[in-house]
């Protein structure tokens, strides 16, 4: 059982994190070991879709990174030097993303790269940067990320966690027998549909073929009717960005505005909509939680005038900047391999704002565990389903039981994990 519905334990690591968090929240200088040789900024590359099909999440993500970089610099920067983000637009085109990665690695000679909201960009960029030996931190979510190599890190969990929502539906909706879903026809949507179908069947539920909708299209009416009228007891939805308002609107206009059986993978995506478009939707939101989250949200709102629309497009990237900065400090230099190895301890001891703050990596460089909270839209507001610890869902991956590593895997381990990897 990969899922354990339990509150986070208050153990050794949490204590460690609390002290770390105290440092961070009071903007104490980070422990820098090396004496400052130069004040020239340390460059960190960013590859993100500022234009194109994922531009909304992409821009929010970059804003979160800017916020992170600003805080790191306020706290004294890395190695006594400020960090500087060099942002490249991937236009939503893999070709453009790889070009940007080549430029960042070879021309700007960045210490590490962060970015890619879309898997079709995260994967080729990841392969390239692994070859070049540059740390690549992404929050894309396809399961294939695990195969890329030791320089790839994921800060937001991968598609396997989709089982959590199916479990939630089964627990929440007594007597639900038939499930179906509405998924974006892209890497994450296809992965989640597959994982959900498998999980539903494992739980003995019937799965009606899901709707995979074309992102960016304007007319979903007929297919929405098909899926809603298929007689499912609950509909799982995985809808993002600009598709959420249009799909909700068309559902309401077609008289299918009863959302009491809608369960979302990403309820945050509905946050900016009118109450009558969302009333009753429940879901598992990727937690922006932990003791620093409130401050982060407040700062984001103050600085940019709005809140990020998507729990994946923002907070994880803010954490990524902090983790990379900490890793550079721990590596005590700009050696890319040392930075890579420092990523594990950096994340292990770091207390972030996404996924309830627990950011430790497993041996694959993926999130060891993810935390979600059960949410519901009531009276137009997104509220926790309940107040107690049972409202938090901790998802642990099956391959390592959710154990984060406090130190990097050895090169021998890496060679076992990634066939063809050469140190």
């Amino acid at each position, binding site marked *: 059982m990969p899922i354990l519905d339990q509150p986070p334990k208050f153990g050794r690591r949490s204590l460690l994190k609390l002290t770390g968090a105290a440092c961070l929240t009071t903007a104490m200088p980070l422990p820098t070991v090396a004496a400052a040789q130069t004040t020239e900024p340390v460059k960190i590359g960013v590859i993100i879709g*500022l*234009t194109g099909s994922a*531009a909304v999440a992409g*821009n929010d993500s*970059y804003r979160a990174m800017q916020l992170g970089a600003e805080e790191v610099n306020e706290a004294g920067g890395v190695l006594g030097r400020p960090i500087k983000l*060099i*942002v*490249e*637009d991937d*236009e*939503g*085109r*893999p*070709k*453009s993303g*790889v*070009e*940007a990665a*080549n*430029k960042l*690695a*070879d*021309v700007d*000679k960045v210490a590490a790269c962060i970015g890619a909201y*879309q*898997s*079709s*960009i995260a*994967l*080729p960029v990841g*392969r*390239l940067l692994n*070859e070049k030996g540059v740390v690549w931190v992404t929050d894309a979510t*396809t399961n*294939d990320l695990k*195969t*890329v190599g030791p320089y790839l890190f994921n800060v937001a969990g991968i598609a396997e966690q989709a089982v959590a929502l199916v479990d939630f539906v089964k627990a929440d909706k007594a007597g639900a027998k038939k499930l179906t879903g509405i998924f974006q*026809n*892209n*890497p994450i*949507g*296809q*992965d989640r549909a597959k994982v959900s179908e498998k999980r539903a069947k494992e739980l003995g539920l019937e799965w009606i073929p899901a709707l*995979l909708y074309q992102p960016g299209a304007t007319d979903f009416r007929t297919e929405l009717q098909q899926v809603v009228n298929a007689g499912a007891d609950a509909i799982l939805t995985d809808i993002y960005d600009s598709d959420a308002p249009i799909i909700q609107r068309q559902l309401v206009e077609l008289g299918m505005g009863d959302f009491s059986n809608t369960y979302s993978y990403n309820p945050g995506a509905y946050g900016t909509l009118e109450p009558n478009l969302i009333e009753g939707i429940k879901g598992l939101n990727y937690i922006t939680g932990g003791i620093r989250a409130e401050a982060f949200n407040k700062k984001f709102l103050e600085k940019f005038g709005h809140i990020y629309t998507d729990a994946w497009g923002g907070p994880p990237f803010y954490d990524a900047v902090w983790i990379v900065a900490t890793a550079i400090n721990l590596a005590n230099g700009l050696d890319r391999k040392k930075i890579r190895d420092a990523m594990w301890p950096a994340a292990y001891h770091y207390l972030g704002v996404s996924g309830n703050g627990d950011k430790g990596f497993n041996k694959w460089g993926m999130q060891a565990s993810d935390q979600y909270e059960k949410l519901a839209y009531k009276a137009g507001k997104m509220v926790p389903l309940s107040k107690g610890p049972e409202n938090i869902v901790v998802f642990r991956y099956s391959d390592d039981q959710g154990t984060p590593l406090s130190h990097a895997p050895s090169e021998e381990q890496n060679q076992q994990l990634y*066939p*063809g990897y050469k140190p």
Partner: protein
Amino acid sequence: MDQLANFGIYLMGITSISLMLAISLDLQVGNCGIVNFGQVVFLTVGAYATAIALGRGSGAVPAVCWGVLAGVLFGLLMSISVRNMSGTYWGILSLSLAEIVRIIALNERWLTGGANGISVLVTVQYLPWIIAGSTLAVLLLVGLLLGSPFGRTIRLIREGDRLPMALGKNVLLLKMETMALGGAIGGLAGAYYALMQRYMSPDDAKPIETFIIWAMVVVGGRGNVWGIVLGTVLIQAFYTGTRFLTGLFDIPADTLAALRLVTIGLLITLVTMFRPQGLLPERRRIYPL
């Protein structure tokens, strides 16, 4: 310094791939008058065929051959529907075929990996150099071919089907040959693309990629191999060069990113406005009767 050289080598490789696609397109549109709006489909089938072959344990060379073969087959398939369809009609038809291929690649996960695409785990040493060498060979081949009787005949087709028909040429066959050759070059480009990107996904197959290749051909000069080279380098320079400009301005990153693409769009428009025949137009030769 050697890192900078690495970036140069990467650009050489990726530009060579674009150049192959542009030459393939020019063979069709600049010489034979076939308005192919679905050019990216050759890259798509070539790259997928290569990636699938590699995934099933094939070696790099046979995999590239599969890519070329896929390009040729698709070229033939497209040319069957050409027949005597004219300009824009054939253009949208080819675009539709390319989109159908992309949508199949997006949804048939057992074959193509769906939206997640296919990763290529094979590393080829000196790949950018191999690609550049192949591109030179293709350039040479196409240059020779265009000077040959075959080249002259397909240029006749560009001006209309009637004259070559009157001369007893089998126009459909010639168009099929041109499309097969174009498909082979495009398929080769696709095979190299899969090896170079180490990945192929439906996002690489969107119509915008076709339009960028079109811009290369038209900006450079249809029917002139040197024009195509210049056009490809120039458009690539627009895309890559503008990345270096963005650091100079102090405006929000999203606005800047959008303005970068606005600049690229305007540059393409301006070049075509002032050189409608391309920067290096085709030299019209008069052959003695």
